[in-house]
């Protein structure tokens, strides 16, 4: 079952098209990454799904219900953080949650304490939100989204502004939600974040979804490469020149990229290549296998956008 389905979803602001003909399928029980550079239309799509703005054309279904026709029923089991979570700064964390709980089903009030404990804010729940750090506000945003006991969590750039420890904590939290059978739709411009958290991904460019599938599929679909830097890159390339697993060697800035033959077993090949380099006397400074298809597609998009800017 898909918890999010869109067909031909389009949003125009005057002559500018922010989201164009998006057909999205988010399977239940997965962490789904919606990946694209800033300005690609990620937030606009989420805002349409949540009824914050109207679609120009196209159809949407959330948890099997058409929106906006059955918006209230659909959103009853959806929690969301859109951009930076916002609060009444003059209220405490607990009071902010009670304000939102009042707009939800009566049972939502009973979930406040559990939600605060879940995100580690039980001790600070009675402090005013204006005294919260950004990380605490992000966690309070998650607690607020849990008041719905959500089947679907929609998180738009949830790690923005968090420190590395906070980001890691967030990743664990999201995987925990998926482990409980919830679905997480995570919008991000960070490839690394999506790869570490998500099972499936859609890459979006200029409002269009350019590729969609499981991360494993997309990774397997492309060439396997290894980024290598040694004390003497020329010598290293000579050592590896005849290796049967290697399709090509191309120098890049300060390192070189090895592209493997598509039919070789990548892990075994990487092990053999590193062994050869060591035996050949090359001091390895960097050895980084990568998935070309996902990374390359994303880089192509971001590079093109940067050039256009």
């Amino acid at each position, binding site marked *: 079952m898909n918890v999010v389905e869109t067909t031909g979803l389009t949003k125009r602001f005057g002559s500018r098209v922010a989201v164009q003909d998006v057909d999205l399928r988010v399977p239940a029980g997965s962490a789904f990454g919606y990946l694209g550079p800033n300005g690609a239309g990620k937030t606009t799509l989420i805002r349409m799904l949540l009824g*914050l703005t109207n679609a120009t054309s196209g159809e949407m279904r959330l948890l099997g219900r058409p929106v906006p026709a059955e918006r209230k029923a659909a*959103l009853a089991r959806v929690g969301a953080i859109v951009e930076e979570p*916002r*609060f009444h700064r003059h209220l405490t964390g607990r009071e902010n949650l009670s304000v939102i709980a009042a707009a939800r089903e009566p049972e939502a009030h009973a979930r406040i304490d559990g939600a605060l404990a879940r995100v580690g804010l039980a001790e600070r729940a009675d402090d005013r939100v204006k005294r919260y750090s950004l990380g605490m506000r992000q966690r309070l945003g998650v607690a607020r989204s849990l008041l*719905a006991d959500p089947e679907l969590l929609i998180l738009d750039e949830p790690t923005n502004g968090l420190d590395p420890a906070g980001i890691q904590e967030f990743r664990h939290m999201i995987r925990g939600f998926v482990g409980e059978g919830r679905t997480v739709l995570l919008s991000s411009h960070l490839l690394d974040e999506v790869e570490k958290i998500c099972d499936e991904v859609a890459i979006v460019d200029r409002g269009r979804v350019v590729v969609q599938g499981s991360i494993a599929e997309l990774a397997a679909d492309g060439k396997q490469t290894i980024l290598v830097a040694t004390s003497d890159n020329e010598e290293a390339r000579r050592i590896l020149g005849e290796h049967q697993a290697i399709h090509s060697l191309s120098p890049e800035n300060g390192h070189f990229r090895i592209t493997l033959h598509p039919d070789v077993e990548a892990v075994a090949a990487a092990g053999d290549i590193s062994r050869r380099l060591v035996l050949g006397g090359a001091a390895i400074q960097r050895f980084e296998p990568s998935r070309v298809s996902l990374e390359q597609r994303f880089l192509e998009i971001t590079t093109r956008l940067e050039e256009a800017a």
Partner: protein
Amino acid sequence: MNMRLVNAEFLKLRKRRGLVIAALVITVLPLLIAFTTLVVLHANNPVKNGPAGGMENFSGSMEILILLSSVAAILVGATLGTGDVGSGVFRELVVTGRSRVALFAARVPAGVGLLLIVVGGAFAITAIGSTVFAGSEGPHTEQVGPGSWETSLGFLAPSGMLLLKSAGWLALSTVVAMVLALGVASLVGSRGTSIGILLGLWIVAMPVLKELGVLGSLRQGVVGVAIDRLGPVPLVPSDPAVPMSLAAAVAVLLAWAAVPLAVGAWRTATQDA
């Protein structure tokens, strides 16, 4: 009406310390100061200064309180109309799936609730002061100069019925001002701008319009004229400068309340969150 939503709106309002203090300072404090001053003056020189209570002072206090409670109502209404959007929480409320019109509607009783407490406190001071510090002199007319006469309502305590009617009149005026402010602020989206517009209307434009005889019966459409028409005699003259029927006054007030509410609800329902 969803009481949980109303309670949430009331919580948001009452926790705004600045707003609550401002409303108290505008309404309760001036009356406390006024009655304290009148009591002290009367105690120092009872011959020159009449009693602090009685009808004369009750009438004067109500005239001030009607104006000040409207100012407090404008502050509260404008805050209600812009608080969620200004803080960004409106988006979070919409995401719950709750009807936007229901979110808007819950603001009205919450605002009325806060204002009834604050303005009720101010009215209580007025009513108690006027009764406790009343004198024995009834209404009279006296000559204050050659051919010049002044009418006094006297210093007898206001009757229970008059207090009741006055409380209702004050509540009506306050609620109309609050609802108007809520609607305008929801439409404009800016608290400061809305307060500026409404104070200009209430304090400057309305008194001027009431006095513009050239407008004739068009003045019946001025909200202040309709409010005056519903005031209890003798707090308002029995022969007002702008005569209008009771039904017309009620219709004008309903329009001044319903139109801003409808516009505010429409804006809340249609704006991007």
